[in-house]
Structures are given as C-alpha cells and as structure tokens.
C-alpha cells in the first residue's frame, strides 16, 4: 500500500526504522513467537480499501435492504420515536466533544466537564434526586448496577421485581447479577395493570435487599401506590429502586418526592435517536446520603475552583472507580455514554421549563386520542383500566399477527405483539392526528376483512 488517508506514515517507514535502528517492521515483532505470527492479510472488509464514495454506496445499498417504512413506527417497548432537533445534532457534531476522551485532564476539558455537570443537574432537577452520575449504558444496565449496589450496601441477595416491568431490563439485570448470586422474586399486577400491593407485602421478608418498580410501567400504566411501596420498604430497611421514563416526569411526581433511594431510567426519550437500540444512556441517581453516594457506580463531575479561585469542574469521588480501586471499585464501568449526556443537556435546554411540559402533554394527549379512537371504532379495548402515558396494551378481536402483516404491507410498523391478540402501541408528538387516524383505518380494514372471511 502506497498511501492511505488514515495511515499517514506509510512513506516514512524506512526513515522511522532508521531512527529506531531496525531493519524492517517485522523486527519490531521479534518477541512474538513465530508460530503465532499471522503472515497473511486478515480476511476483513472488502479486501481493497474502499473510497468514501464506495462506502456511501454500500451503506445506501444496505438502506435499501431495510424496508422503507413510514416513519415514525407506532412502537415503544422501551424506546419511543421523537424528533431530535438539529441544534442537538450540530452540537454533538462538534469534534472537540465527540473526539475527546474522559476528562482526566480537567484544565483542558472544562467545556466537556461543564456540559456533563449540566446533564447531571438536569437529571437531578427532573428526578429531584441530589446525586446523578454522568451516565451508564442503558436502562437494563442501570437496573443491574442498582441491584449490585443494594447488595453491596446491605449484603442481601433477594430482589423484588414486578411482572409489569420491561422484560428486557429484567433479562439484563439477571445476566449481570448472576455472578453475585442475586435471586429475583416476582410480584403480580392487578386488573388496572398496577403492582398488586398485597402480593408485594407477602413477598417482603428480611432477606430482601431491594424492591424495584417502574413508572409508568411496561404497559404504560401509572403506578399510583408508590408512597405505600416506599413506606413498606423503609419500614423493613429495604432499598427502593424506581425506574422512570424521564419524559413523563414533566407531568408526574418525581422519584425524589417519594423518597426512593435509587432512581434509574433511560434517556433515549429526551434527545437520543432510536439507533436500532443503541447507544442510549442509562440514568442513575441517588438520594443525598453518603451510604448511597459512596456506593454509586459511574463517573461524577463536580463543581470546584481552580488555583486562582475561578469556578471550575472536575471528576469527583474517583476513589469509587475501577482505575483507582480495582476489585474494590463500585463498578467496572469506564467508557460510558457521556456524549449522549450532552445531547440530553442540549435537548432539555431547548425544551426548557415550558417545552418539556408541552411535549409530555402532547404525548399524553395523543396516546389517549389513539386509544379512544381505536375503542370508539369498536376495534377492541385496552387491557388495563389504569391511566397511562405514551403506551397502552390493546386487545383486538382477531390475531394480531394478521393485523401486523397487513400494516407492514402498507409500510407501517404497528405495535409490539404481546400475546396472540394484543399489542403494545406507542404514540408521541411525531404521530399527527392524520397518522393516527390512518393507522386506525388500516386496522379497521384488516379486522373487517378477517371477520368477513370468517363469516363467508
């Protein structure tokens, strides 16, 4: 290879070797046993370096292999589609941010540190929790870390979790905590779709380390007995972990006001694209209690001053971290989702106090409109009676996979199938009345057809 845009020294090999005093590059590997030297090019990529134009063309080819669905999908299940403002993308495209590293040299990274401090502060305000780290991977990972943290604090291994939580988060938490022998105990939900408090009380014992619950829960339903849950837990010295959709907190009571110990969630809905599932950002926060704070996982930025008394920012509580404490660290995490924390800060700054309320309201209204519309047209009914936000589980009179196939044939991605005849639908500010009506019409169409063919 003569030249490559990303390998600037190809023409300097001889010169550099001369400086080093080596004959050829292979000499630099004379300590690698001969038998493991590869001695052939890797079979990777498409052999020859492709030009940017050819890479673009390949990506466009892959794009065509995806189905060109009407955007947005009517799909939630942990991630919901929202509009990402151009200003957010523009700030993230600033390469001082996106090509930087963990700000171990705070003097050269004040901007990055301040942006991350602002992210933490936004979350603190939204959650009303005093301490927030500057990100974990995602909701599932944050739940796993919260469980491990509870275990570190009280040494207990039993975790109570509700059946109306996102099952994917549960899968992740189970995987991560397996090594520590954590045991999960399920709590049922009632006909409103909410946690069955009686069942919860029955499951509580002295072995329980923590109780987890999700607000709004997997079915989009608001839990309304959180005070009771937290009180129960406090009485038994059990740690409470609350999972939240941060967008909903513009309308509903934040975890801090319930006095929960740990709040977690995913920031995808406040400024992060769908990204086929990742990267997103795991939110992690605790109360102002050093027993909790000192056991927190993840990086934290704090406010301080420089040697001339000027305001500045730096990483704090670093003695919790793996690079300092190794096996005694509060987590192994190092690379996190920092850049997306900046995305969240920019997004929330654009929304501001009024915007986030308006946005959450629109989401709330539109999801209710869609449910009403489906019900009014006689196409089935909501499974649960509790009030909801953004998502709801809907029971249809026919098999949902028939509905789904039909919708796909119209380039619509409908709800997430839950069981034979039901699906979880999601509506946000991106779903106009016109689009919702169109979806309902299409569903009506297929149900009519199926029912007609049954009769016929």
């Amino acid at each position: 290879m003569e030249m490559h845009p990303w390998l600037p020294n190809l023409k300097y090999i001889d010169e550099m070797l001369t400086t080093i005093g080596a004959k050829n590059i292979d000499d630099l590997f004379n300590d690698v046993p001969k038998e493991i030297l590869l001695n052939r090019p890797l079979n990777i990529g498409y052999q020859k370096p492709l030009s940017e134009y050819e890479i673009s063309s390949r990506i466009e080819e892959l794009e065509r292999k995806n189905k060109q669905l009407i955007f947005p999908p009517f799909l939630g299940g942990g991630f919901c589609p929202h509009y990402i403002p151009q200003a957010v993308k523009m700030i993230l495209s600033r390469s001082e941010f996106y090509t930087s590293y963990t700000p171990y040299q705070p003097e050269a990274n004040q901007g990055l540190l301040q942006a991350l401090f602002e992210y933490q502060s936004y979350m603190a305000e939204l959650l009303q929790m005093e301490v927030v780290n500057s990100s974990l991977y995602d909701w599932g990972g944050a739940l796993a870390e919260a469980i491990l943290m509870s275990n570190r604090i009280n040494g207990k291994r039993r975790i109570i979790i509700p059946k109306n939580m996102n099952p994917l988060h549960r899968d992740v938490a189970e995987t991560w905590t397996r090594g520590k022998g954590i045991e999960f105990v399920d709590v049922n939900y009632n006909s409103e779709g909410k946690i069955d408090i009686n069942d919860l009380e029955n499951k509580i014992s002295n072995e329980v380390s923590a109780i987890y619950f999700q607000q709004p829960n997997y079915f989009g339903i608001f839990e309304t007995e959180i005070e009771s849950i937290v009180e129960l837990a406090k009485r038994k010295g059990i740690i409470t972990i609350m999972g939240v959709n941060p967008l909903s907190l513009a309308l509903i009571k934040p975890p801090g006001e319930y006095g929960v110990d740990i709040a977690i969630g995913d920031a995808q809905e406040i400024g992060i694209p769908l990204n086929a599932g990742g990267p997103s950002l795991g939110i992690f926060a605790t109360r102002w209690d050093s027993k909790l704070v000192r056991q927190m996982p993840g990086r934290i930025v704090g406010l301080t001053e420089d040697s001339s008394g000027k305001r500045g920012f730096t990483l704090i509580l670093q003695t919790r971290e793996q690079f300092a404490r190794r096996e005694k660290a509060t987590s192994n995490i190092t690379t996190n989702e920092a850049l997306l924390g900046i995305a969240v800060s920019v997004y929330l700054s654009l929304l501001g106090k009024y915007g986030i309320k308006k946005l959450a309201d629109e989401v709330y209204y539109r999801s209710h409109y869609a449910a009403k519309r489906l019900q009014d047209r006689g196409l089935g009914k909501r499974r649960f009676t509790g009030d909801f936000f953004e998502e709801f589980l809907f029971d249809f009179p026919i098999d949902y996979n028939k509905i789904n196939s039909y919708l796909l044939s119209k380039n619509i991605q409908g709800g997430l199938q839950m069981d034979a005849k039901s699906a979880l639908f999601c509506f946000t500010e991106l779903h106009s009345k016109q689009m919702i009506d169109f979806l309902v019409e299409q569903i009506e169409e297929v149900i009519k057809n199926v029912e007609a063919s049954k009769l016929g």
Partner: protein
Amino acid sequence: WDEPIIFDFKGKQRQGIIIPEDDEIKNEIQVEIPEKIRRNSELEFPQMSELEVVRHYTRLSQMSFGVDIGMMPLGSCTMKYNPKIEEKTQELVENVHPLQDISTMQGVLELLYEMQKWIAEATGMDNCSFQVPAGASGELAGVLMTKKFHENKNQNRTEMLVADTAHGTNPASAAMAGYKVIYVKTNEKGLVDLDILKEIVNENTAGFMLTNPNTLGLFEENIMEISKIIHNDNGVLYYDGANLNGILGVARPGDMGFDIVHVNLHKTFAVPHGGGGPGAGAICAKGELAEYLPYPIIENIDGKFEFVKPKKSIGKMSTFYGNVANIARAYSYILGMGAEGISMVGKMSTLATNYLITKLKGVKGMELPFSGIYRKHEVVFSVKQLMNDTGITAFDVAKALLDRGFYAPTIYFPPIVEEALMIEATETEPKETLDEFADALKNILETAYANPKDILESPHNTSVRRLDQVKANYPSTITPTYLVKKLRNQNKINLLK
C-alpha cells in the same frame, strides 16, 4: 469563555424549539393526570432561545480538547483519528426502532452479521456478540461466560487471575461476577512471571485475564506457555482487547490460545470516544465457549438474517443489541481500511511507538523501565528521577503538556511503575506530530530542571488553572449537581459524610 452554568440563565418564557401541537386532538379528549401522582413542584429548567443554547454549548465545545484538535497520547486508550465518513454511515440506523419487525431491518442485520464475522477473523475467534456496549461490559460478559462454563461442568471455581499490570477493569469485572481476584506478579522483564503463575494456578482457578501486549506495551512472549498452564488446569484464558491495536493484523489472540476476547471498537476500530462514551464492544469466543456468548447473535438462515440465542448463552448484557450506531461507524472504518489497511494497523502503531521511544531516549530525568525490548502500541516511561531531582512529578509533566498543544498521557499507570507516563502513539498521528510531541516533552524536562516553578504552575494557557480536588470532594463543599448547590444555599442539605 466564562460561560455561566445553564441553570443560571434566567430568561423569561423562552423556548428553544417548537413542539408540534394538535388542537383538534386536545379538543376531542379530556384527560388529566390523576392528582395523586401529578407533579406539583415546578421544574426549574432554564428558558432559552435556540441561539442561547447553541452559543452556550458551542462555547463549551471550544473549551474541550479532542483528537481533531491535537494529539492525545493517552496510553491504553488508542485515541486514533475518527474518519468523518463514520458520522455519515451511522445514519443507516439512526431511525431504526430496535423492535421493528425483523424483515424490515435486514440491512442493519447484514451489517451486524458481516461485522461479527470480521471481528471474529481479526481476533481468531469463532463468533462474536455485540451485546457489550463497552470494554468493561465485555470483560464482565467474558467472566460470566467463564463462570457459567465451569458451573455447567459442575465446578465451583472461585478465583480469577489478573496480572498486576492489568487495567483496573479486569479485577473490577472479576469481582462483579463474584470472583476472588488473585494478582499475578510481573517479573523483571515486565512480563507475567511464569514460576509464580504455575504456583498460583490450581483447581480453584477459573481463568486468567490478560492483555497482550500488556500495559507496558510489551508482548507476553511466553504466551503459549501461559496458555498451556491455564488450559492444563482447565482454566479459561481471557483476552482484554484494550491493547489489540498493537498487534492487529500481526498476530491474533485466538492463535495464542485465548478462549474469550473482548474488543473495544472505539479503540481499535476508530469509533470516536465521545468524551468518555458511547463506545461499542464485541465479546468473542471460540470452541465450546462460543455457545455461552450473550444473545442475540445474528445468523444467516437461508439468506435471511435472524437473531439467534446461543445454546448456553449467559443472557443479555444490553437492553437491545448493543451500540449499533457505533458498530456502523466501525463498519465504515473497516471498509475504508480494507484488509490491506487493517493488516497494517499493528505494524504502523508499533512503528510509531518505537519511533517515539527512540526520540525520547536519553532525556534527562526520564527513564524507560524494562528497556531493550521493542514496545508495541504503547510505552511507559518513569519520571521518578525527575521527581527526585526537582520535585516535579508525572502529574506536573502532564499539566505542562497541556500548555504545549497536546493532551497528556495516561499517568500513574500501570501501578508497578513509579511516576509513570504511559504514552500511546497511534498509527494515525503523522511523523511530524510525533516529532513535535517528543520535542515538547524534552522541552518540559529541560524547563523542569532550569525553571521548575514554570512547570509546577502549569497549565498556564488553559481556560482554568489547576483545580482544587480537595474542595471538589470535601463533605461540606462537594457539589455533584446544581440541585445540591441550590439546596446548600438554602441550608436544606447536610454534609455528605
């Protein structure tokens, strides 16, 4: 810039973006959040116009330092250049919902499938999973795989070996998985001490977590012997991929006897580091261990790509499929490098490091421990002599580099080297920049002897001077969020003891 904290912007009823509103919908439904759960406390977000938000964060960005600004010689971090085409190619997945019908995302799956194969090829493994969003997550996955592997054989092995030069994540991950961590000492050559290793390994040994080249930049030349020792006792040999850049295309962990490998796509495959993340990772394994990979992985079944769960999978590490947008970035990097280019990475990064070492040889105050062997991707110098002579530490040297247009190396790591400067010169830095970096470092050491005060007071040219770490962490002044600042001003908060 002296940018206020965003919560100090006190605008009135400003909004930086318009939310689509639909009055028809609002008229048609009458709903209200149940009072019991309604938020009553006011959300004290700042109220800003688009200009204010953009100006604030643009100014903040100007007070940051990335690879596009200058060389970042951070050891073990592989701060290579991030080709701009990557930012375009991630658009492929930007608007794809993870739970879409699989028939509608075949293009994304094809990309992931190709990447699985390519990363497996690059590491000499049989298969890979992208469930791990970062290196530490990859380590945890690997350790959990090891654990389940032994459990399935009804063996309760409680000890995980880790080299004393290892990245801190290794012991931390092992501990998270419930293992007792046993450190393996480094010998006088800077390598794993085989005699000690042999002594330590027993029927309780679950495995050995190793990075090769190690954090001193030295290739573990006895790797085949190490492999034999571990495997003789049915242990698992785990490869920490943080240092893969030094041998990529030259030798493969799989060919050295490693069973499990994690790869940091944000290091070796040029995904931008984003100020600490998001990254992207792969966890790969060979033989029987491949059946334990976290799910899903992708298979091509009769020309259709499907998500599949490996038979003995440990479960899921990420809520969805890992950091797909970043895998797309790495994909375009691999296409742009081609097999030809990727095969040169280990060689060119190693060339750069050894060139830099030669340029820095004989600088007064700085020594190269474990001298005489070629480094691979990185090198660790010690400025202990400098400290003894002048009182100036590795920390001070790092700050002085900031004044000279460079980021600082990793310092005080690995712990076995005193006053360590851990420098990684990637293959993407032009020779001229390596020269300039060497000159800057020489200049600092000379200045340190001639005018130590200048170095002790650096950095001079950054937006702030040295920061007060005590105040930052002191119970009465620690301020992790603006909320804490506010509550403290209102006397509503205690000391954080």
